[in-house]
């Protein structure tokens, strides 16, 4: 895709250099638009997911100056203990940053400014970006940037990142800040009492020669707020000062020091926001009226189920339509090398294997993947997901989780990998582990493709719905059992962000990035997998895998023994199962599969539930260590076998 922001004098550096120039960090509250700005500044070098739970770095060149841009997970405070926020804080504490681009949602100025005040303590230049100007205008919010800049000592700019408006001005500001010495923001002054303790701590930090990247003042304040975030400051003198202050604040105000300091910042941010905001019209925006409807205790559920139904119906029908457009083209390509089968069987097996991989990616997966990611992006854009948390929290409590876990689950319908990263937003380790164990059971786009493709060809939408309902029921039962074993959850505390109109342009860009990721990553896997299976069949060694899986596949589930080898490839990517089923059973279209309706349904159930795919397994291992990863894999194999067996018995009873 040709980058539409090429005229911004920003270029990628294709080869990684060992010596970076300056480092710019993009910091802001969750959902303030950081990743969108990162994508624009780095020539779209990013994945398409909105919710960022890891540090993303990219190298860029601005006016021949090499710079590294870092997109950090959203943070509410630099003293937070939340897992994803700690990742951002650790990065800040252990890496030297030269310039901060602080993204603030213009419709949520007070909370954004409170974080800004905290960032000023770092003692490095800050550019404030007031994002979502379009939404602010709709609400009649006008922010006086001149006063704001003067009060905080920072450069301030307003923009609408999702439409690209104002990005050029931001680039110019970055250029100026890198060329000239940018203004150093003035640190915020706390009350006299606190300032005295800060000065004492600053002195100890300076005297003890602890290696620090930033202003000692910043570390002094952090030591008071959350000493656990900077363990290297466990010095007897520091502990003494902190304890003194803690005793004083607790006795006088019945508050913890972090609460007191946070409240001072909040009061200042509120006062500042009141000084710089002018509301030009006082009417309830359409989004707020919509919000009242979709958060309603009864109508909200009706809207939620309607959205869910529409979501799946769209994927099913749009997917079918796209597949019907692509199929004839791919079929004609397939016929072009058919003569090789007799003249050069090995070459034919290799080419046909690669072709089956392409067929799987473009003909089967892509038609369903495309509407799925587009609709998910549009939903993410609106902020509807946090309403779903509100609606679903009660139900989630019934299965031993709380509402926030629904967000990783919803992301899991796209791909389990970002869903596993999204568990970082859960504060409680127990909720994180439980959600992570359940995510591999959520039908991801690959498994939804298997369900939709097989259902469209052989069983009809009724069975697709039954299978999806069964999987949801199963997740509920497993979660309930796990909640009995693990300690209880801490409960929900969550901000409900204002609803926004989705930006179609931004959603299309994100969809493109996800499709590009898929084509770059999955297509190679599918082609190589297809070639290997072609060889496996050519040399007739698939029987080894078939025999290995035969106790479950043919013995327990009454499926064709040849499907055993397809399951091995399904571990690489679940979509491969479809392609491999073609080859293993020697048919050209799914509708010709030599299987009964019961067998197809049992096979779908098994494929959807057995073993997470390779990428999911690796991320599970990385995030939760080997015990959870291996337990999850064995557990899912067990659940898949039991579930398929139950379906086999029930279907035999129905159809005999």
């Amino acid at each position, binding site marked *: 895709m040709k980058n539409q922001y090429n005229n911004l004098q920003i270029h990628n550096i294709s080869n990684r250099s060992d010596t970076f120039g300056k480092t710019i960090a993009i910091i802001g509250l969750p959902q303030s638009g950081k990743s969108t700005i990162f994508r624009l500044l780095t020539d779209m070098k990013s994945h398409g997911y909105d919710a960022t739970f890891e540090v993303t770095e990219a190298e860029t060149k601005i006016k021949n100056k090499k710079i590294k841009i870092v997109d950090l997970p959203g943070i*509410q*405070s630099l*003293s*937070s*203990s*939340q897992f994803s926020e700690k990742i951002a804080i650790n990065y800040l504490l252990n890496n030297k940053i030269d310039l901060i681009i602080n993204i603030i949602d213009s*419709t*949520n*100025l*007070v*909370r954004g400014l*409170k974080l800004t005040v905290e960032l000023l303590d770092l003692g490095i230049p800050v550019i404030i970006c007031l994002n979502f100007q379009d939404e602010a205008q709709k609400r009649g919010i006008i922010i006086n940037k001149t006063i704001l800049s003067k009060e905080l000592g920072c450069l301030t700019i307003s923009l609408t990142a999702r439409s690209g408006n104002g990005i050029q001005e931001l680039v110019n500001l970055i250029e100026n800040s890198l060329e000239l010495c940018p203004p150093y923001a003035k640190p915020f002054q706390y009350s006299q009492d606190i300032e005295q303790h800060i000065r004492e701590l600053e002195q100890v930090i300076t005297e003890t020669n602890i290696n620090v990247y930033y202003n000692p003042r910043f570390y002094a304040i952090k030591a008071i707020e*959350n000493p656990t975030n900077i363990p290297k400051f466990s010095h007897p003198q520091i502990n003494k000062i902190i304890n003194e202050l803690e005793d004083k604040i607790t006795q006088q105000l*019945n*508050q*913890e020091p*972090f*609460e007191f300091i*946070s*409240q001072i910042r*909040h009061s200042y941010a*509120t006062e500042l*926001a009141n000084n710089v905001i002018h509301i030009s019209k006082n009417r309830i925006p359409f989004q*707020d009226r919509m919000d009242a409807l979709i*958060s309603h*205790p009864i109508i909200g559920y009706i809207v939620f189920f309607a959205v869910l139904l529409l979501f799946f119906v769209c994927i099913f029908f749009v997917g079918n339509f796209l597949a019907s457009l692509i199929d004839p083209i791919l079929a004609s390509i397939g016929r072009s090398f058919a003569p090789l089968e007799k003249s050069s069987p090995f070459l034919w097996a290799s080419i046909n294997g690669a072709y089956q991989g392409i067929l799987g990616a473009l003909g089967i997966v892509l038609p369903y993947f495309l509407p799925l990611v587009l609709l998910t992006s549009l939903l993410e854009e609106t902020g509807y997901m*946090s309403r779903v*948390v*509100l*609606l679903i*929290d*009660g*139900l989630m*409590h019934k299965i031993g989780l*709380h*509402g926030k876990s629904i967000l990783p689950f919803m992301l899991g319908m796209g791909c389990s990998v970002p869903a596993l990263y999204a568990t970082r937003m859960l*504060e409680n380790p127990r909720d994180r582990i439980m959600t992570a164990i359940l995510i591999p059971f959520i039908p991801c786009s690959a498994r939804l493709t298997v369900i939709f493709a097989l259902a469209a060809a052989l069983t009809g939408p009724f069975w697709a719905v039954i299978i999806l309902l069964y999987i949801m029921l199963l997740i509920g039962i497993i979660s309930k059992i796990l909640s009995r074993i693990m300690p209880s959850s*801490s*409960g*929900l*505390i*969550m*901000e*409900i962000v*204002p609803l926004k109109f989705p930006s179609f342009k931004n959603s299309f860009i994100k969809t493109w990035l996800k499709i590009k990721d898929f084509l770059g990553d999955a297509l190679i896997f599918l082609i190589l997998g297809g070639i290997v299976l072609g060889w496996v069949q050519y040399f007739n060694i698939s029987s080894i895998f078939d025999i290995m899986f035969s106790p479950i596949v043919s013995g327990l589930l009454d499926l064709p023994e040849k499907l055993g080898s397809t399951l091995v490839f399904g571990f690489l990517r679940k979509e491969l199962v479809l392609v491999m089923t073609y080859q293993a059973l020697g048919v050209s279209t799914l509708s010709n599969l030599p299987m009964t309706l019961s067998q197809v349904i049992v096979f779908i159930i098994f494929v959807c539930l057995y073993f997470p795919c390779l990428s999911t397994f690796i991320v599970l291992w990385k995030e939760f260590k080997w015990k959870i990863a291996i337990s999850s894999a064995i557990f899912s194999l067990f659940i898949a076998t039991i579930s398929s067996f139950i379906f086999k018995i029930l279907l035999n009873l129905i159809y005999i």
Partner: protein
Amino acid sequence: MTLLQAPENVPLKITEIKSGIEIKKQLSNLDLYITEYIIKLKGARFGPILIQKLKEGNEKFAIGQGIADKIIVESCNEKSI
């Protein structure tokens, strides 16, 4: 009374938070402290309660019932806000 027991659509003042440090940290990250004025918008028997801060914009927060039961509030009249 606790936030869980408090009536809907009445101005409330947070007077005490009877929870552990982690919950207090999460609440203070969302600017919910002692002396803060709030209004309870929705208090369902099933699911979290929905609150809004009285002094600022249209920020809304969902609070689980267990946590709402640890936040002590008192009713107040609009003049005192």
